[in-house]
């Protein structure tokens, strides 16, 4: 199969039909909104259809595939010519399907999935004979045989089961009540106001209050407030139903997560598919010493996107994470020792905070001279957040593991293993360069997309040392 082959002509038909389907709306628009004589729109419509036909056939003519030197080689493209060579080792799965068009001619559609990123990860042979499909499958399975035998061996090993985590009722309530940011704010405000109930002389205020209520202002704001509380309650109940009975079991080399009260869900994650570990602390949970732990896993396809970002420990005391991870995920070592961003980075963190908050505040002040004063509170909050962002920035390397910590609103710590990291980038802007600072960005795989960590404004030498740690070239890693 080393000579280039074309797809069956049905592929061209399928292309044309698909393009026609996609362009049906523009064509309809031309037909409907054209002038009454109708000649011009007829020509335009026919022209478009002819164009679609010709380009469909030309695209089909250009599309060739062949198997050569252990690679599936596809060349295509009418205007932009593309060559895609997929080594067999990289092919994750071959899916065959028969559509209405393929069936009468005994053809199949073959979808080749690689572990790549996004839509580009797939190559599709729209119409090939069953024979050819079989040939390709055989060639592929021969080159993969070694791997399969290995997998089967693991399968037969004895499996031991161990419960890693089980949510307690208290934790469930805590998780649910601190999950939505808005809810937290509202309940905080409510709690704050209730403190004043003793101080404010209600009886005395009551007369004036009734005037207010009849005026409707108070009523509306009360309704809005109740609405918020109701929304929060609904979110809370939903969350309780979703995360009730949250249990993580480790069975052999797999993690099995079950959760849910009404609708039970189970998720199985093979340990070897875990790409990264992420610890998340939102401000409220951080204040009471709790965190959530997520794992990023390599989902096979877009279909089960759900399984790529998995909540492993929904809510847990910070100091108990280590013990859980060390029994469950032996590959990861937790740490609290971080190299922080240098002092001179604080200025840049503050500046970035002010850079957008001050203009916003200025506009608000200009528009609402009195109420706009509240925007100063906003600037203050951003300043505090900027400081905590600076405090959160840090990194550390433990053998084959890179740990990056940063904060947007929640504090996030990402654990990346060297052999799971897909690429590392260091970034320097002009001003960073002047201050000898740099940004580090590490990417790992998550589902069929990317995840990772970024830390802004670290010491440039630190960033270089991370870069060096990641480099596989011996003279660099010295």
């Amino acid at each position, binding site marked *: 199969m080393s000579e280039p082959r074309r797809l069956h002509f049905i592929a061209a038909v399928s292309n044309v039909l698909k393009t026609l389907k996609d362009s049906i709306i523009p064509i309809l628009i031309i037909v409907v909104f054209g002038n009454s004589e109708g000649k011009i729109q007829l020509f335009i419509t026919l022209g478009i259809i002819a164009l679609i036909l010709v380009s469909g056939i030309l695209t089909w003519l250009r599309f060739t595939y062949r198997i050569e030197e*252990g*690679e599936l080689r596809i060349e295509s*493209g009418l*205007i*932009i*010519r*593309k*060559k*895609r*060579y*997929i*080594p067999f*080792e*990289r092919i994750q799965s071959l899916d065959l399907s028969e559509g209405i068009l393929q069936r009468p001619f005994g053809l199949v559609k073959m979808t080749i999935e*690689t*572990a*790549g*990123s996004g839509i*580009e*990860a797939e190559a599709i042979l729209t119409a090939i004979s069953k024979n050819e499909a079989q040939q390709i499958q055989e060639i592929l399975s021969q080159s993969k045989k070694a791997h399969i035998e290995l997998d089967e061996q693991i399968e037969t090993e004895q499996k031991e089961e161990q419960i890693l985590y089980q949510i307690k009722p208290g934790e469930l309530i805590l998780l649910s009540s601190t999950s939505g940011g808005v809810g937290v704010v509202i309940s905080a405000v409510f709690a704050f106001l209730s403190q004043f109930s003793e101080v404010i002389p209600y009886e005395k205020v009551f007369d004036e209050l009734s005037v207010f209520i009849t005026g409707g202002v108070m009523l509306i704001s009360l309704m809005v407030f109740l609405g918020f509380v109701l929304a929060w309650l609904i979110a809370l109940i939903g969350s309780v139903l979703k995360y009730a009975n949250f249990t993580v079991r480790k069975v052999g080399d797999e993690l099995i997560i079950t959760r849910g009260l009404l609708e039970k869900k189970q998720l199985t994650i093979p340990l*070897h598919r875990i790409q990264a570990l992420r610890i998340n602390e939102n401000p409220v949970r951080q204040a009471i010493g709790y965190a959530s732990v997520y794992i990023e896993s*390599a989902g096979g396809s877009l279909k089960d996107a759900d399984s790529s970002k998995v909540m492993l420990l929904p809510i847990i005391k910070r100091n108990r994470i280590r013990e859980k991870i060390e029994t469950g995920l032996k590959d990861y070592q937790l740490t609290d020792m971080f190299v922080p961003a240098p002092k001179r980075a604080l200025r840049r963190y503050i500046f970035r905070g002010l850079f957008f908050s001050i203009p916003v505040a200025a506009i608000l002040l200009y528009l609402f001279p009195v109420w706009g004063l509240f925007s100063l509170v906003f600037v203050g909050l951003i300043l505090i957040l900027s400081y905590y962002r600076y405090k959160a920035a840090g990194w550390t390397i433990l053998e084959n593991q890179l740990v990056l910590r940063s904060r947007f609103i929640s504090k996030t710590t990402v654990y990346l293993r060297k*052999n799971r*990291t*897909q*690429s*590392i*980038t*260091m*970034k*320097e*802007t*002009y001003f960073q*360069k002047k201050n000898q600072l740099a940004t580090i960005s590490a*990417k*790992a*795989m*998550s589902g069929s*997309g*990317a*995840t*990772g960590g970024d830390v802004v404004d670290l010491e440039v030498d630190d960033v*270089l040392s991370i*870069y*060096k740690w*990641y*480099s*596989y*070239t011996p*003279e*660099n890693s010295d």
Partner: protein
Amino acid sequence: MLSKPQKRISKRGLTVWKISGALHSLIPFVLAIGAIVLTFIFDWQMWIIGVALIIFALYAYLAIKVFPTVRWKRWRYEVRENEIELQHGIFIIKRTLVPMIRVQHVDTHQGPILRKYKLATVTVSTAATVHEIPALDLEEAEELRFFISNLARVAVDDV
């Protein structure tokens, strides 16, 4: 100390970027012409013409001259036995390291302008990211794709 990537992309790439910069400048050109015509039709003030022309000139100068030149000067790449290193960026200089064992597949593609100048763009995909080396000499691009896909295959698949 870490060695920086050394190889530059083709000088013809600079020409291609200038051409595409010129094509991009057509948009502010048309807008500027439109502004001038409207100014005459509706008797707007004359300084509008000046502003329109200045904006167009500035855009064209940046898009045709400054950005392609800086971009070309910054672009460095190096394909080593174990990894690919890229360095690029006009305002933010990005240096990226992609280990060979993480490479999933390598593609080349070329648009009409690139084809006329016998250039091609190489994209290197990992399981999570896509990296591009633009405007390489066609033969170099083919060689590179061949080289990378060969090296990448040696690696163990542990994704």
